């Protein structure tokens, strides 16, 4: 049980960290100042969640691990983040679509985790519900704004869907540790699909059918993206082992 709990917590931590890292690439480069602030804010929120999860995982491992040793000293095959969050930012449309797909899922997941028997996970989830609700609202509004904006924005959203949809299946494919933790991804999938369909409908965007889904992230088999993210993220800790910052 504990192994599954640790792995699951690491999955949650890695996922939020990597998405935070990707979003933070926009800092200073956003399309509008207010949105630069918003995406950085979301990045901060996700980082805060990641830190909570890493700290919990470190406590569970009880072997000297810290939030930093877990984030900075593990390698690609040990990371358990979703493939979706390691994908490149692409344009603004791709970034907010990735956020919407993820946050819609995360909100439903956190709502479920609030009831989980593991009190710490439940507490972290509870703490994060309010900001995640905002993430869903902010990103879904952007999906609609861009899907039903100009021809150009609509086409860019079609392209973004083509890039990202194939990574949405993994959200609902339970890894062994998720099953062991009793996470019900089936009901989450159903609600997620309904919500996404409704938003896409308002955004005048088509919901893809019959797309083959990629997976592997939850088990440490990533795309070629993650390695590069880690070279930047981990460089200083690798270069100055044991130093305090």
């Amino acid at each position: 049980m504990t192994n599954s709990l640790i792995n699951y917590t690491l999955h949650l931590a890695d996922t939020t960290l990597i998405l935070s890292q990707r979003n933070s690439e926009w800092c200073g480069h956003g399309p509008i100042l207010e949105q630069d602030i918003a995406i950085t804010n979301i990045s901060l929120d996700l980082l805060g969640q990641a830190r909570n999860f890493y700290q919990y995982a470190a406590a569970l491992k009880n072997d000297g691990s810290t939030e930093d040793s877990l984030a900075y000293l593990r390698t690609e095959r040990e990371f358990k983040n979703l493939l979706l969050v390691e994908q490149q930012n692409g344009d603004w449309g791709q970034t907010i679509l990735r956020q919407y797909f993820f946050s819609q899922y995360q909100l439903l997941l956190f709502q479920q985790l609030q009831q989980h028997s593991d009190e710490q996970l439940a507490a972290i989830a509870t703490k994060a519900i309010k900001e995640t609700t905002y993430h869903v609202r902010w990103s879904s509004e952007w999906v609609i704004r861009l899907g039903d904006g100009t021809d150009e924005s609509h086409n860019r959203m079609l392209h973004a869907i083509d890039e990202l949809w194939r990574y949405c299946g993994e959200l609902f494919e339970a890894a062994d540790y998720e099953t062991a933790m009793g996470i019900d991804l089936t009901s989450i999938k159903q609600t997620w699909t309904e919500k996404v369909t409704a938003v896409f409908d308002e955004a005048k965007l088509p919901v893809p059918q019959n797309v083959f889904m990629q997976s592997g992230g939850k088990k440490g088999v990533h795309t070629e993206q993650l390695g590069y993210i880690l070279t930047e993220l981990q460089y200083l800790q690798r270069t100055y082992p044991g130093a305090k910052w």
Partner: protein
Amino acid sequence: MSVHDLENTFQRKIDEEVKIEPKDWMPEAYRKTNLRQISQHAHSEIVGMLPEGNWISRAPSLKRKAILLAKVQDEAGHGLYLYCAAETLGMSREQMIDDLHSGKAKYSSIFNYPTLTWADMGAIGWLVDGAAILNQVMLCRTSYGPYARAMVRICKEESFHQRQGFESLLVLSKGTPEQKAMCQDAINRWWWPSLMMFGPKDSESTNSDQSMKWKIKRKTNDELRQQFVDMCVEQVKLLGMTLPDPHLKWNEARGHYDFGEIDWNEFWNVVKGNGPCNKQRLDARRKAHEEGRWVREAAAAHAEKQKIKAAKDNLAAA
């Protein structure tokens, strides 16, 4: 009222520390000077996100990453307050941004230096924010209301940033030999550019007299620079580091530290556009603006569609 009366009323408000507000009459030169200063301050906040944003992905601990993200986000927020304050003086944000991108409007030269190591983050917090704070504390009492109020909000956050920057250097200064060397190296590279943040010597500063009279500026360049030096000489001792100026020396008679001559060639070169990162900073801002065009256009188009839809719904309901 004659112009002469208007000018008298205006100057009396200033002398009595009554804030000038957007709807008040003001000399055109006062409006222009404030507009230039406030918008350039806003540009500085925005451009200033870039050298620090450069180290977000490589921040060496999750805590430092969070602190840095929050700092840069605050700076974006400061830019927002300041653009709003500047807009009250009659120029749109779009126009201000165009002026920045065309090179017509300036931003603080300090951001034209590259951030080369993690320690630069601490050095920027300590020295650059430190220098900015001296300027800004003064500006909290500036005569133009919207500017003063924006500055009060900004000052609160900047003090916090400066303390975190110094704390980050303190940790390095107690760390490994490599970290100590990294700390000293960053101080060596950021010290003189920070002194340059206070601008030219008073004797060569063109705008000063009128700005002092209108209480846009409340202390001279040299006064602020001296205050900064005096403060930093004490603070650097806590780090066990040195400032890269062999001429730093307490002058009992003046009651201040003497310091070396700034390389004014370098100062003017960077102001002129020849600093290490001038091109990169503006290229980055222009690129963000250009690549964001379709996003802004889509948002506007969508908003328009919503307006039309709402109008239709009203008609239908009527």
